[in-house]
């Protein structure tokens, strides 16, 4: 029984990872408005490792995820890391209030028509994608906890070293 439990524990992240249909595919390009102003286009960041985090203002783990990503960005920015948070709320006022209230240093983007969320097949919040320097989706994380964060950091370091 313990063996089965251990197998499920270890296999669950991998199963979740492989079930993402866009993994190992080129990340769909997009251009979105940033809350702080200006527009961001993904294809302009070829050559950088990019983290995309889809989040909602009512989702508590999403906020924890954004804070963790903020710390990660502070550490690895000089190694060529870019982080973008993509808000999927219908009502953007909460997202804008959050953006002005929190000290997140990376751009928070608005996707009011959900076109980008649909193209990335977002099925869970938070959902964090790791895109390599060639614009290929390498990993996806659908949860935020200490274990998944550690695994995510390992994957990120490996990508930055490529």
């Amino acid at each position: 029984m313990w063996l089965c439990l251990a197998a499920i524990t270890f296999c669950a992240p991998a199963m979740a990872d492989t079930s993402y249909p866009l993994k190992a595919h080129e990340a769909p390009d997009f251009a979105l408005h940033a809350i702080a102003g200006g527009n961001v286009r993904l294809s302009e960041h070829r050559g950088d490792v990019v983290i995309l985090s889809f989040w909602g203002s009512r989702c508590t783990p999403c906020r924890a995820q954004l804070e963790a990503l903020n710390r990660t960005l502070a550490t690895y920015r000089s190694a060529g890391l870019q982080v973008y948070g993509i808000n999927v709320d219908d009502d953007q006022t909460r997202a804008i209030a959050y953006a002005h209230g929190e000290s997140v240093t990376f751009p928070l983007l608005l996707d009011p028509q959900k076109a980008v969320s649909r193209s990335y097949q977002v099925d869970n919040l938070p959902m964090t994608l790791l895109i390599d320097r060639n614009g290929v989706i390498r990993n996806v994380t659908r949860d935020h906890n200490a274990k998944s964060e550690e695994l995510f950091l390992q994957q990120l370091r490996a990508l930055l070293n490529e």
Partner: protein
Amino acid sequence: MQYVFEHRKASLLRAWSRLATAAVFSICACVTAPAVLAQDAAAAPSASAGTSAPAAAVPAPVAAGTAPAPTAAAPSAAGSKAAGPKPAGPKPAATKAAVSKASATAASAATASKASAGTAPLTAEMPGADAASPAGGAAAGTNAAVPANAADAAAQGDAATPPDTRGLDQEVQGLKKDVVDLNRELFVLEEELLFPANTQVAVFVSMDVGDFFALDSVTLKIDQKEVINYLYTPREVEALLKGGVHRLYLGNLKVGKHELVAFFSGKGPNDRDYKRGATLKFEKGIGAKYLELKINDRQRKQQPEFEVKDWE
């Protein structure tokens, strides 16, 4: 046209596969080159030992005269047979057979020269072996000294001579160029297929100065139907300000009268949100139609100006 398109696609795929194969070969060459060089370098001193013996020098012209083609390979190969050490590297089975045959007939130089004259590259190596065998003592003497020298020479060869992969590099570069050319032709064919000249309409955006307007997005409607909404990033705006022209839209329209409406959004004077529109009624004839959305600064009014220009 469809056939040509498919044909081009197939040739592009073939070129890619050739490029991949060439890349694999170049990598293999880079990996194996040092080992080959070490083997050659180990063989080199034994060749010199072989030619230094007077008896070895004599039959060489015979071999050169009878079989001219393999003479280039003969000195080193013959040397390696005559005095080269066994551990210099693995030899082909046919070469080993030739060596054993040569030692068996070592007593008769005439027989050996006949054998070398009669046949192909491998037998052309025999004169060296035959030449060494009469001077057996000398050959044995050099044999003892060679392994250490060979190891030194191999080390020197590794350090001094880099692997020569220039030919492969050039081939790979040539294939890359072919792929780029094919890709370009494919792109042109694709555009001709999807947007034939008779129905093609292209809309471009250009910007001059930009002191009174910071462009954020352009929404384009043709015949009251939104065809594109494009967000401009700061980099793209910078490129436009440097004189760049952006192709905003490429599509098809039938011959006749049409209406184009463009909405420009951004920051206007005093950093205020600014949204303006521009309209153009145009007639599409036979042939491609090119339209330009120009953003200018009007100094007198301290306002931006939006203009739609029809390129004749």
